[in-house]
């Protein structure tokens, strides 16, 4: 009996999202502290919705539109965010660990205090995005567009910036590798103050 209850509990946990939360979201254009984990929300238009503090762990948001969506404090760990539009979205304090955000659009998005760990943001478009105080670790920004973006108080040295557009990108109190510094200078990035260029750690 215990084993049966345990199995049910586990399967419910794995299943994740609450259909009532999805229904509420689509009806009211708002659902705070809701559970969308493991949900398939691909290709859906959630622009301008208020979904703060919600859980999108392992959800599929590929090709979805979250233009100007309120996403403060959301958990996207392991989510599929390929080609997702986060243009001008508020992603402050959001968790973007292990996300696949290849070719996603973060143009003008607020990513202050967000967490980006082992995340794939290659080929993403992040012009004017604000990464102030974001925790950035081993994240792939290769071939992404980071022009005019803000990196204040970050350590980007473990991440990949190869081929990224860094024109007018603002760095302040930031740690980069020598290679990243040289490339950023060639791209006319702006080193405002206290930018540390250090040897890449093996």
């Amino acid at each position, binding site marked *: 009996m215990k084993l049966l209850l345990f199995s049910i509990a586990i399967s419910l946990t794995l299943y994740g999202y609450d259909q009532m939360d999805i229904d509420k979201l689509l009806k009211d254009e708002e659902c705070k502290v809701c559970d969308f984990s493991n949900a398939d929300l691909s290709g859906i238009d959630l622009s301008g919705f208020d979904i703060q503090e919600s859980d999108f762990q392992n959800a599929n948001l590929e090709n979805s539109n979250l233009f100007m969506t309120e996403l403060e404090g959301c958990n996207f760990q392991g989510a599929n965010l390929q080609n997702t539009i986060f243009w001008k979205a508020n992603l402050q304090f959001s968790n973007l660990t292990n996300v696949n955000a290849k070719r996603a659009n973060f143009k003008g998005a607020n990513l202050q205090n967000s967490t980006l760990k082992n995340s794939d943001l290659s080929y993403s*478009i992040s*012009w*004017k995005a604000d990464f102030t105080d974001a925790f950035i670790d081993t994240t792939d920004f290769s071939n992404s*567009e980071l*022009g005019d973006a803000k990196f204040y108080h970050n350590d980007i040295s473990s991440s990949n910036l190869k*081929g990224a*557009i860094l*024109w*007018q990108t603002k760095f302040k109190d930031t740690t980069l590798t020598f290679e990243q510094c040289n490339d950023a200078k060639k*791209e006319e990035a702006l080193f405002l103050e206290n930018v540390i260029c250090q040897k890449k750690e093996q």
Partner: protein
Amino acid sequence: MIKIFFLFILMVSSICAMQITQDLSFQNVYKNNQNNDKLVLMLYSAETCPQCAYMKQKVFKDIEVKKFMDKQFVILEKDVNKDDLPQGFDYFGIPTMFFINKEGNQVGKIIGSSRAKPFLQQIQNIVKENR
């Protein structure tokens, strides 16, 4: 009666819509380049577009890119907020670059910004496909 009215409006708007070959700036571009086979690179941009500024101020000025562009293209810039835009050249975002031959046909299109090296590769491919 209403149907006929809308049909009439549609016909008038089709006649009034500007073809690229009727565009004065397009005509001037070709008038000044009658003796060569350059394609027109029509750039849709706007003053408030940082990607457009990056392409114009950084990528187009890259030595290799500039050399290739001077040889292969004549540039025609259109501000999407100020200029009349020719019919058939719709855009989703800016910058958008249309590559147009003498007959006014679009032979290539690039949307968005990229660094000099991949951009050079893209424009080389467009020229190669149209030679």
